[in-house]
């Protein structure tokens, strides 16, 4: 296990072995043993396997979004005016707000992982709930934006007939292409957020039942990786969709 895979989520400056050793009280190994699935030799192996599994999954996810980003980049190159015009039709204030909301949710998620590692159950639950609130806020704002696009006749395929006259060099199909990517990429991202909220709900329930401790917090840490990944996808989507419109 390369240690860098786990380090970002540990208290700063604390090597992996120490971090677990510090929190081990008497009898804690027994406690941890309850959570070891039969195929693993010990808790370390299980923890490492789970973390590596999530990283491999995230690699898959990168390729999943990567295909879309590649297609977006090609069409942006081909139809620059349409893409810039389309970008200007998006609501930059809402996009910026959502970016801030998501970054805040990443912070609370990191704090949730930290609380789990240090065995603070109440803080863990609070930070998880806070993360969920931010996530739900993001989705709410996104839904509001979607509704506006519907009202503005900017939903490709279903209701696409922009009312304003298009600037020179912008054709209707090309503009529709921009909105295809806008909707597909943000919807795919939103789907990941919804899945993330589902995971958070399970984690909150399990935390309330006291399933996690300083010896066993792998699900929190691994879900944290997923949450941060979904945030990072947005960090790329936001400039590509909202900012590269030539409005300053």
């Amino acid at each position: 296990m390369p240690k860098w895979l786990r380090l970002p989520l540990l208290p700063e400056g604390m090597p992996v072995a120490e971090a677990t050793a510090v929190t081990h009280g008497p009898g804690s190994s027994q406690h941890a043993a309850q959570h070891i699935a039969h195929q693993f030799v010990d808790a370390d192996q299980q923890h490492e396997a789970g973390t590596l599994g999530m990283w491999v999954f995230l690699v898959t996810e990168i390729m999943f979004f990567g295909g879309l980003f590649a297609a977006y980049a090609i069409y942006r190159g081909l139809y620059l005016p349409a893409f810039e015009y389309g970008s200007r039709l998006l609501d930059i204030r809402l996009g910026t707000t959502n970016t801030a909301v998501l970054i805040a949710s990443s912070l609370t998620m990191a704090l949730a992982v930290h609380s789990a590692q240090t065995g603070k159950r109440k803080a863990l639950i609070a930070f998880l709930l806070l993360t969920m609130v931010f996530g739900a806020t993001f989705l709410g704002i996104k839904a509001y934006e979607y509704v506006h696009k519907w009202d503005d006749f900017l939903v490709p395929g279903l209701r696409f007939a922009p009312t304003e006259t298009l600037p020179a060099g912008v054709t209707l199909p090309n503009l529709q292409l921009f909105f295809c990517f806008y909707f597909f990429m943000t919807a795919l991202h939103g789907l990941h957020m919804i899945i993330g909220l589902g995971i958070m709900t399970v984690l909150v329930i399990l935390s309330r039942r006291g399933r996690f401790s300083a010896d066993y917090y792998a699900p929190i840490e691994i879900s944290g990786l997923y949450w941060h990944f979904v945030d990072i996808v947005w960090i790329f989507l936001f400039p590509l969709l909202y900012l590269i419109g030539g409005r300053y």
Partner: protein
Amino acid sequence: MSTAVAEVPGARPVNYLNAKYGIRSWLLTTDHKRIALLYLVSITFMFFIGGAAATLMRMHLITPGGALVQPETYNKLFSIHGIVMVFFFMIPSIPAVLGNFLVPMMVGAKDLAFPRINLLSWYIYVVGALFTLYAILAGGVDTGWTFYTPYSSTYANSHVIAAALGVFISGFSSILTGLNFIVTIHKMRAPGLTWFRMPLFLWAIYATSIIMVLGTPVVAITIVLVALERLLHVGIFDPKLGGDPLLFQHLFWFYSHPAVYIMVLPGMGVVSELIACFSRKRIFGYSFVAFSSLAIAVISFLVWGHHMFVTGQSIYAGLIFSLLSFLVAIPSAIKVFNWTATLYKGSISYQAPMLYGLGFIGLFTMGGLTGLFLASLATDVHLNGTYFIVAHFHYIMVGGTVMAYMGGLHFWWPKITGRMYSDAWARFAALLIFVGFNLTFFPQFMLGYLGMPRRYATYPAEFQVLNVMSSAGASILGIGYLIPLVYFIYSMRYGPIAGPNPWRATGLEWQTPSPPPTENFEETPVVTEEAYAYAQMAPPAAVAGRNAGG
């Protein structure tokens, strides 16, 4: 939680097959060995569906005007054959059946890292297969397995969305399988099992898993875009609406060329095991064979453009893709030479698995060399879209992968079931498959070279002799595939008891009873030597066992 397996004297030993009974114990199992058998049954079913489509096609092509079906139906037949065979048989074949069964045993673990995800991936496969079967029953799909746009997204008047969804869904099955293998091989190796002591099958599966994890999501998202375009009539790939159909081909082949290596790399892993065991020698150039698997996985991602030499891609891109495609021949050739060198001065025995192994080397070499014709820009212009391509990739996929899959199935069958099959029948079937295969596909090289295009329901009368030869070969091939079905099923009940290690092979999987107990090993094995230590292995007729010296 499972309990330790205890040997009861006098009673039949408890193994993974008889530990529990009933349909629930199978459908809810998390045992990698049982999941392997679930896959075995499901992909065999799909294999015979794809095979039936192929049979109808070959029967149709006996006469120049088409003997059997309407041209539209013919289009659906080759599409069904391609989609079912590629996505529902070849891609899961060796990884999901043999890989599932063997990876945990070869690393000396009790199970894969994520047993429940493993079961989930089988269910995902089944759901994907059901969508595809629905598309077939509802009236079929006629786009070919490649779903080229804008035909698939705009003009095709068949059940494209259902078939595409089936492919999309089954993709997640292969992603999760690959993820499970990567983590298992990294994290769950037994004490002493260093990377360079691993059997080459594991290296091959590892390289395959990397492709599965990196490539599959790209084709998945592409197929969703096609379905969206078809559903909403937006122009993502439709040139009429500003879309770029070439982009679809780029995205499609970015996965689907590496997918060829998803199919053939595990076969190479199987063949490495077979050649070493039946030559009684350590594999020649172990680390070269191991790294060539990784090299193939890496280069496979850089060659997709050779499918698009004549579809309007820039000539400079074509030049580079041509060069890179030649590069992939190097690691492939390294493997072939090393297998051949392993045979040299080995004490070779020609049991059924070895016949398949040797068949693989010959047929894969032919498939690989004819691939170079297609990687050259100039000859590809002549051969593209002809039966030459059909013959080429069938030499790789059927001559390569299916031969290896059959070889692997024959090799590990005694481990899987604890019983031996009839060796005489197995050798007969292996020869029949080899003869039938060559008779089917070699004439297609000639047909393609003479200019017969693929995917046509009719052809000029001058091509009839070769087509009849091909169809005759296909019928022999079909019988060759049916015979093992019979003797395998027969052996499960009436075959002689195999014992733990009937081939006296090395490898951890042979050090545990056949069939293995649910937890695979009574205690965690410790590895003290390299793979393929056949030099220390007892000569024939000795007690199956393993000299731990080294």
